[in-house]
């Protein structure tokens, strides 16, 4: 089981309270689709994703970004049991959506970048980065857990 120091718990909840999922979520998903273009294959139903401008202006991308980012709330509230909290979501991504779990890591990277860009170096310090990236790594691991 993952061990969290008090400092890490505080850093994660502190950042989470400041994060607007409606702002960061769409940005992170847009970055994923632009920086790692093969990920577009999972979103054929979203309409026009053919250019960066189309992706950034696509309301389904924005909505889904918000949904995914909002999903992190479950992990923040269940930090000692993220694996169980995400078990059914992991099964869904594996069996229904057929998402390569490597993409979870790519999305986590994009989320971290958005958070860094939003808060700058005085808030997203080295310690904050360590806690946040550890948190996302645990989420990524939990999402990949039910794959076989």
């Amino acid at each position, binding site marked *: 089981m993952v061990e969290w120091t008090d400092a890490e718990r505080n850093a994660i909840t502190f950042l989470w309270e400041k994060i607007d999922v409606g702002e960061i979520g769409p940005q992170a998903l*847009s970055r994923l689709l632009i920086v790692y273009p093969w990920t577009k294959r999972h979103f054929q139903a979203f309409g026009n994703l053919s250019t960066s401008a189309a*992706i950034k202006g696509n309301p389904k991308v924005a909505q889904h970004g918000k949904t995914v980012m909002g999903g992190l709330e479950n992990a923040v509230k269940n930090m000692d049991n993220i694996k169980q909290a995400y078990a059914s979501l992991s099964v869904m991504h594996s069996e229904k959506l057929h998402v390569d779990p490597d993409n979870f890591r790519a999305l986590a990277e994009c989320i971290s*970048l958005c958070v860094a*860009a*939003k808060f*700058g*170096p005085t808030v997203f310090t*080295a*310690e904050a980065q*360590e806690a946040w990236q550890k948190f996302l790594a645990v989420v990524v691991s939990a999402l990949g857990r039910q794959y076989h």
Partner: protein
Amino acid sequence: MVKWTDLERSTVRAVWEKVDIDEIGPQIWARVLVVYPWTERYFGSFGDIFTTTAILNNTKVAAHGKVVLEALDKAVKNMDNMKRMYAALSLLHFQKLEVDPDNFRLLADCITIAIACKLKSALTPQVQATWQKFLAAVVEAMSSQYY
């Protein structure tokens, strides 16, 4: 050989122009040592790097950050010839420093995060894609003499 469009070349240069080596250099090593603590094993001669406070105040850590960014400056100026340019440095990291090349990717991530903190929304998704392509080429060049 990596192909660069004119837009990618100008994007990398534009990002680099905004990077103050004296400001960003110290930050990148602090982030690597704090976020990936096993990297401390490579810096035995730097003195106290075993707490976050010590890392953030360590002058050798700060100086080494600048050394790395000065080397990156060479890559910005020689985007078509990185492999040859970094051959000796790659050999040094392999044979003498015995650095696991996986750590180059972690350092590249911390450089990108530090730049994101600085540039904020100017690091658009397209700029991010180009910058990460650039750093991936650097990481590959730095790994090229390993076998």
